[in-house]
């Protein structure tokens, strides 16, 4: 009993010391840059993010407010302070363009970083603002906007909340989460898993190697999904009979809620489902090597 007691003590010490050794105390230095620009008609926001997290929120003021946080985390304060200076930014308004960008500049080629460098943007813009965003290795989030957008993001997540207006969204390698989307939008998604809840208006989705799931469809004018090697899942809502429906999966299957079958044409191989009444808004989805699941 006594021996077992000692063994427990030793194990506790070993585990505790390993836990203590596994933690590193980091010095964090954050530079915050704030700037406000007046927003006039025909102004637009151009953002070139580089390994940054971006959040853009619509507000009612005729101003664009930008808050950029550049952070450096390192073992010593000296390293953190020195390498924070490698993070550069551009923040300017010229004519109608409100431009912002962050980039990295090393003192010499092949420099090896010793710290974690982070960049985050929080931007408030008028709801109807025109926005062009290009980012990689970070997340982009847009909220409460009804303007025109062109958003491209690589290796990061794209999140849209309460978005109207016209948008062109490109995503490569990441998740795309959308809540309450109306207006006219175009998605080009590559290796991106997409979940949309609350969709109305006109939407065109092009997906390659990424599953697409859409729930709560309402007042849809046109929905067209063209996918490759992707599973599609659509919940059409209680008003599903208001639409012309066309679903086709080449080398795959279309799985339909049994209650939606009687008035529709379904192929023998279950790879094609058509229910068309002339003049109705159309919901069309095609994919290859994937399953299309349709529910009410």
């Amino acid at each position, binding site marked *: 009993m006594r021996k077992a007691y000692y063994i427990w003590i030793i194990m506790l010490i070993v585990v505790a010391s390993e836990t203590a050794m596994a933690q590193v105390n980091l*010095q964090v230095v954050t530079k915050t840059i704030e*700037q406000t620009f007046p927003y006039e008609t025909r102004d637009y926001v*151009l953002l*070139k993010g*580089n390994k940054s997290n971006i959040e853009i929120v619509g507000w009612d003021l005729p101003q664009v407010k930008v808050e950029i946080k550049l952070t450096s985390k390192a073992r010593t304060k000296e390293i*953190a302070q020195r390498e924070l200076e490698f993070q550069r930014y551009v923040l300017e308004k010229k004519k109608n363009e409100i*431009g912002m960008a962050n*980039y990295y*500049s090393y003192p010499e080629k092949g420099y090896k970083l010793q710290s974690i460098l982070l960049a985050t943007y929080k931007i408030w813009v008028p709801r109807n603002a025109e926005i062009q965003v290009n980012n990689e290795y970070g997340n982009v989030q847009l909220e409460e906007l009804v303007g025109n957008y062109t958003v491209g993001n690589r290796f990061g997540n794209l999140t849209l909340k309460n978005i109207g207006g016209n948008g062109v969204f490109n995503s490569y390698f990441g998740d795309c989460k959308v809540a309450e989307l109306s207006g006219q939008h175009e998605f080009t998604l590559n290796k991106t898993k997409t979940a949309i809840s609350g969709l109305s208006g006109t939407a065109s989705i092009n997906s390659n190697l990424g599953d697409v799931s859409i729930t709560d469809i309402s007042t849809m004018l046109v929905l067209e999904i063209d996918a490759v090697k992707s599973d599609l899942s659509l919940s059409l809502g209680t008003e599903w009979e208001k639409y012309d429906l066309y679903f086709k999966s080449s080398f795959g299957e279309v799985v339909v809620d049994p209650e939606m079958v009687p008035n529709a044409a379904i192929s023998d191989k279950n790879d094609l489902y058509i229910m068309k009444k002339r003049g109705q808004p159309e919901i069309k989805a095609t994919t290859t090597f994937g399953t299309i699941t349709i529910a009410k």
Partner: protein
Amino acid sequence: MKRLILLSLTAFALTDVAYAQENVTIEEHQEEMDTAEFSRLVQSYNTIIRADEEKLNMFTIDLLGPFFYAISNWGDNKTTINRVIDVAYEQKFSPNWSWIVGSNYNADRAKYREVKAYAGGRYYYNMNRRILKGKSANNFSANYIGSTANYGRRFHDDDSQVTWNLVYGIQRRLGKRMFLDFTVGFENIFSAYDDRETGTDLILDFRYGLTF
């Protein structure tokens, strides 16, 4: 000419002060992180961050002048004066501003004609725009407005010339070791060679060569 200078300087000043209410704060704190996680993140950041090299100085040697000199074997020698040697050194002192000094040795196939030296500054006005568009911004690839004071000397005639140039230029680095530099502008001659007159001339220049 004075109006042009004043206008240029005012334009530069305005672009810098129009939205000067930028507020910058720096905070410091400590936090703990798993050692393995920290090392992994630093390693992956080194992989994914595409950083520009902060090149603050550039030494250039023009190759076009020597090339044209080498092939200028025809006609009247005096009509084909070339820059046989043209070197320059440029140093950045702020992201958009640099100073430059240079010298060139001009000759035709018969004899050397003159030696020129110049010094001045350049304002790269579209550096930020290139960064916003995701283009290369390695500090010397941009468009600029430049101003140089030039001194030329013809030793064999014991004659000299002093000019002040205001130019618009497009400079790009091509790969690691090449560059091109195109300039167009005005040459204001204060003190002319005997065979020239003081006044303002248009100038056009193209340099292409090696950079270090």
